[in-house]
């Protein structure tokens, strides 16, 4: 047993547990933000698990999740635009905390991996996570506004 697995367990218990509560209750805006945060936390936990089990191939799971998570949130921002337009997400503290957590996890992993391809891959995953979450949070905040202008002609063309 090592510290990486303990950190992953703590991240899963203390991070994903509250996001599960956030996804299961409350208004739609909070649910979408909580789901986005959950993808980031599970991705970080997978990175820690890969280091803890000493299997570098497990990093691929985190890479796929880092790509799929923000893409899924963008899809939700598009499809739930009506709900988000009525009440756009307001609080940014959770998103910023999750984004600040990424370097805290990725940098020690890079140090442990040593210089080389593995560290570069970890850094790329971290950059993908941060950029994807910023874009997704921005899209969720702007979902109502942009869709307000774009939906009219689209609906007219479809009908």
């Amino acid at each position: 047993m090592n510290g990486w697995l303990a950190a992953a367990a703590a991240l899963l218990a203390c991070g994903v547990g509250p996001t599960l509560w956030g996804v299961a209750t409350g208004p739609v805006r909070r649910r979408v933000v909580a789901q986005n945060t959950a993808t980031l936390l599970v991705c970080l936990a997978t990175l820690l698990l890969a280091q803890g089990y000493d299997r570098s191939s497990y990093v691929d799971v985190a890479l796929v999740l880092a790509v799929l998570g923000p893409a899924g949130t963008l899809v939700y921002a598009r499809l739930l635009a009506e709900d988000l337009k009525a009440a756009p997400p307001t609080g940014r503290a959770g998103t910023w905390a999750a984004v600040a957590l990424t370097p805290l996890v990725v940098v020690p992993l890079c140090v442990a991996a040593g210089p080389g391809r593995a560290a570069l891959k970890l850094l790329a995953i971290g950059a993908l996570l941060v950029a994807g979450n910023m874009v997704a949070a921005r899209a969720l905040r702007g979902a109502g506004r942009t869709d307000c202008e774009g939906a009219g002609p689209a609906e007219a063309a479809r009908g």
Partner: protein
Amino acid sequence: MDDVLIVITLLLVAASATAAVAVRDPVRQALVLSLLGLTLAALFTVLQAPDVALSQLAVGTALTPLLLTLAVRKVHRRPHTRDDGRGGETTGSTESAGAIESAAAKERGE
């Protein structure tokens, strides 16, 4: 300690699956389902099956909620398209709407 990780992820899976059943609105259910896919992927990684976790991520996190949300959108939009003057269908069943659509598609094909 491996057991602790397995227990934590199993508890998360059980909690999110229960939440997915307890939430009644399909759109919100899609969000909980995507979290269920995430926790299942974490569980598979803990159980040393990263390939299963990869496919679970693709299917459970992205595809299933997307299909659900698209279907809900389609169902919500259908009354509007029927009111647009497709004829005097007033029965209101989804089968009649599907029949109208297939008939329209046939006309377009010819």
